[in-house]
């Protein structure tokens, strides 16, 4: 144990890099789309229209009460046909990647919505009234006054959530998508160095997350939060 043949690692570097690209693709798309959808959900949550509020609240509660593994399986096993016809995908596209991205986006949106909602609450109500009194419309108030301040306060939390998402992407293992972890584990299985490859993958994630954590601490200091 722990006596890995480094030439194997060297040979599998291109494969590992491919896996890392898949991991990053999912992470970045899901963070961007999830944050956009999350903002919409958070805004809907404070809407004057009750049905919108209920819709947003039930979306968030629903996704927050299901395990991510189940969400991934739902999207992979149950709705791929629906997805491919809905998004009009050609048969060549990797349905696993698409369903993983959609699943992560839908799932993370619920968590981002909660973070953004909390951030919007931290902006004092007086500012909202002041902006309205200045003659801004509601949407102008939201876009120019509330959201910019809310996002400033939330930056560390959003980054941390991004890091959690980055870690969670390794769960695509269960739908057989070859991300960084799955690739490492597969190489390990075929070469007989499974423990070493899994440990290697773990340290890869560790380094990235450790750096992001350090960055979060720095951002917090910079923003004087």
């Amino acid at each position, binding site marked *: *144990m722990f006596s890995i043949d480094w030439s194997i690692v060297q040979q599998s570097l291109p494969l590992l890099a491919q896996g890392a690209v898949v991991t990053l693709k999912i992470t970045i798309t899901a963070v961007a789309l999830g944050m956009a959808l999350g903002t919409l959900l958070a805004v809907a949550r404070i809407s004057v229209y009750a049905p919108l509020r209920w819709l947003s609240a039930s979306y968030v509660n629903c996704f927050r009460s299901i*395990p*991510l593994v*189940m969400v991934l*399986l739902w999207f992979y096993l149950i709705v791929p046909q*629906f997805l491919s016809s809905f998004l009009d995908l050609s048969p060549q596209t990797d349905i696993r990647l698409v369903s993983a991205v959609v699943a992560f986006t839908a799932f993370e949106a619920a968590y981002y919505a909660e973070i953004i909602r909390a951030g919007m609450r931290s902006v004092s109500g007086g500012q909202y009234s002041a902006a309205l009194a200045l003659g801004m419309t509601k949407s102008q108030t939201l876009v120019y006054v509330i959201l910019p301040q809310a996002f400033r306060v939330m930056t560390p939390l959003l980054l941390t959530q991004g890091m959690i998402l980055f870690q*969670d992407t390794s769960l695509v293992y269960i739908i057989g998508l070859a991300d960084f*972890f799955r690739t490492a584990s597969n190489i390990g299985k075929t070469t007989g160095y499974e423990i070493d490859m*899994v440990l290697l*993958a773990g340290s890869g994630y560790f380094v990235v997350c450790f750096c992001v954590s350090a960055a979060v601490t720095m951002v917090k200091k910079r923003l004087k939060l």
Partner: protein
Amino acid sequence: MQAANWNWGIFFEQAPFGNVTYFSWLVDGFLTTAALSICAWILAFLLGSFFGILRTLPNKILSTIGALYVTIFRNIPLIVQFFIWYLAAPDLLPYKASVWFKSELDPNIQFFIISTCALGFFTGARVCEQVRSGIQALSHGQRYAALALGLTLPQTYRHVLLPNAYRIIIPPLTSEMLNMVKNSAVASTVGLIELTAQANRLLEFSGYAYESFIAVTAAYALLNFAVMRSMKVLENKMRLPSMNAGGKNV
């Protein structure tokens, strides 16, 4: 997505093996997930409390050990941790114990123990952070007052700091517990037949995808609901008459 022909009766039909219905598969999965959650929570609570207390001690070395634990277990994805426990941990046991564990112990119990450790250590790091922030949220005066009254440091923790800190952190601990119940689904990757694994089995053998997945999802919701209710009861029971919302100015 056609909402096809629902057939909830499927759960009362005979499963392909064992003289049981599909419903009992569901119940089995539910009980396994519940048992795993309870065992892992006990482990996580003990580890989290221990390292959380370490992090608040005046000793530099001890607090660094606490920080190290959190750093390691929070920065590695859960599924990777499951695999490391699964692949490496049994080999770290003494030779005889390792052989017994791997070849003589019922595989289901093996997977259960491995999953408990993986989930417990992972969640422990989160609990540790909550315990630390709970202790640090108390005003410094409490620690100084207790020490000035002649209590030793362990006594200060036992009788003054911890009782207050734990009361404050019941709500965040509840949400960690809910997260843990959800994270327990990862245990299906190392072979434990819990709820998620049962969902796959149900799908595979019964062929009723929607019914199986809706039932399992509902089972998770039920478990989470039970956790929330019981923590609410606990919180009300533990509340001190002098404690208002924050608990800071006791």
